[in-house]
């Protein structure tokens, strides 16, 4: 029997190894797997490469992971935020490497990894600093830059509901990087608020088919800023 549902976050993350590339979903307040990030901090793996759209806010979640000193490199599109002081300090003091990637390239490089594409030519960034040193090619009169996939060892994503085969649905704009990160990692761990029986998720509406998902852990629905629900008054 296939059962991808695990009882705890600790169990879901037990085998994350030092040096792993960890893909972390989320954009702004939507879709951040905050509980899984906290679990990764508790788990203790170090020398990590983290891929996320941003580089953490304030002192929680990804910022707390960075602050723990276990991240060697961040691959992201937009680290600078009003409250990204943890990243800013580590970056300025040279303790953290940054690979800045245009957001669409980040998504497409993840998708390419998941789809088995060796590399692809993309028009984004041609002639800019971010394409410096990269191979370029003119194709039918248009200039392109060669971009390579981003493979993850582990993906941590947040979905709304899932079943024991690993099928996932998301909630609103919390979907963002979840589906492409799920495809791009050797082991994908999804937190969900609801676990459904097989067949209960409408097969026409499944967003990430279970083949891309390895572990599902249920987390309570709490009114956190990152949880997608209005804070209790």
């Amino acid at each position, binding site marked *: 029997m296939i059962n991808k549902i695990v009882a705890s976050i600790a169990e879901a993350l037990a085998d994350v190894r030092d040096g792993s590339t960890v893909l972390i979903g989320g954009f702004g307040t939507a879709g951040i797997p905050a509980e899984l990030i906290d679990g990764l901090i508790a788990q203790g793996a170090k020398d990590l490469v983290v891929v996320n759209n941003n580089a953490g806010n304030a002192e929680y979640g990804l910022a707390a992971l960075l602050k723990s000193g276990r991240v060697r490199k961040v691959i992201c599109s937009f680290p600078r935020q009003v409250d990204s002081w943890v990243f800013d300090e580590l970056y*300025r003091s040279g303790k953290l490497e940054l690979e*800045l990637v245009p957001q669409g390239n980040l998504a497409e490089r993840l998708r390419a990894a998941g789809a088995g594409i060796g590399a692809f030519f993309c028009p984004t960034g041609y002639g*800019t600093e971010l394409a410096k040193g990269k191979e370029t090619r003119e194709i039918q009169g248009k200039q392109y830059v060669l971009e390579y996939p981003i493979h993850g060892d582990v993906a941590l994503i947040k979905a709304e509901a899932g079943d024991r085969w690993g099928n996932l649905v998301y909630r609103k704009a919390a979907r963002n990087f979840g589906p492409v990160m799920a495809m791009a990692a050797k082991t994908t761990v999804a937190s969900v608020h609801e676990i459904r029986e097989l067949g209960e998720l409408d097969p026409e509406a499944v967003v990430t088919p279970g083949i891309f998902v390895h572990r599902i852990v249920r987390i309570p629905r709490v009114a956190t800023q990152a949880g997608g629900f209005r804070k209790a008054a």
Partner: protein
Amino acid sequence: MAYQKRSKDALARRVAQDIFDGAYVNLGIGMPTSVANHIPAGREVILQSENGILGMGPAPAEGSEDYDLINAGKQPVTLLPGGAFFHHADSFAMMRGGHLDICVLGAFQVSATGDLANWSTGEPGAIPAVGGAMDLAIGAKETWVMMDLLTKKGESKVVERCTYPLTGIGCVKKIYTELCTLACTPQGLALIDSVEGLSPAELERLVGLPIAA
């Protein structure tokens, strides 16, 4: 002759006037966001947000914010009936695949031939951040810039060659400013309109570049 600058609202209205019925549009963070409030009545325009929304609606009423439903600037928004959600690779395919009709962006500088600089001032020690700027700039069928023509020091932000780091090459079609609307062409700038009382000669003096009538 004396002339008056377009107000922020008047500028947003001027941009909105050129957005056609049925257009798929991405409005950048900052000044361009305000264009949404000025779409002329009777035109149905579908707004895209890079984080996976088509059919984005206005900000929710206070107390109804849903932090799973935010725009690219990470502010709470709503979804119009008929709207849809999708993942990031699809969202950027809408840009780079040429499906988006118009994107409106802010800028530090635009060159006469449409090079755009809007992601970095290149200051040493600054934390770099690019987000979706480079994908948007080259992806939409038309990229428009909305910005002040002049810096606080009175220098033109429309330049012969950008000195700030580039976002995209030759990608800007039109520039909407507080004083004028300009077209960027491979041959240089062309005048679309300017505020009343501002002569072409005076505008060329402010910009410091030839502007074809």
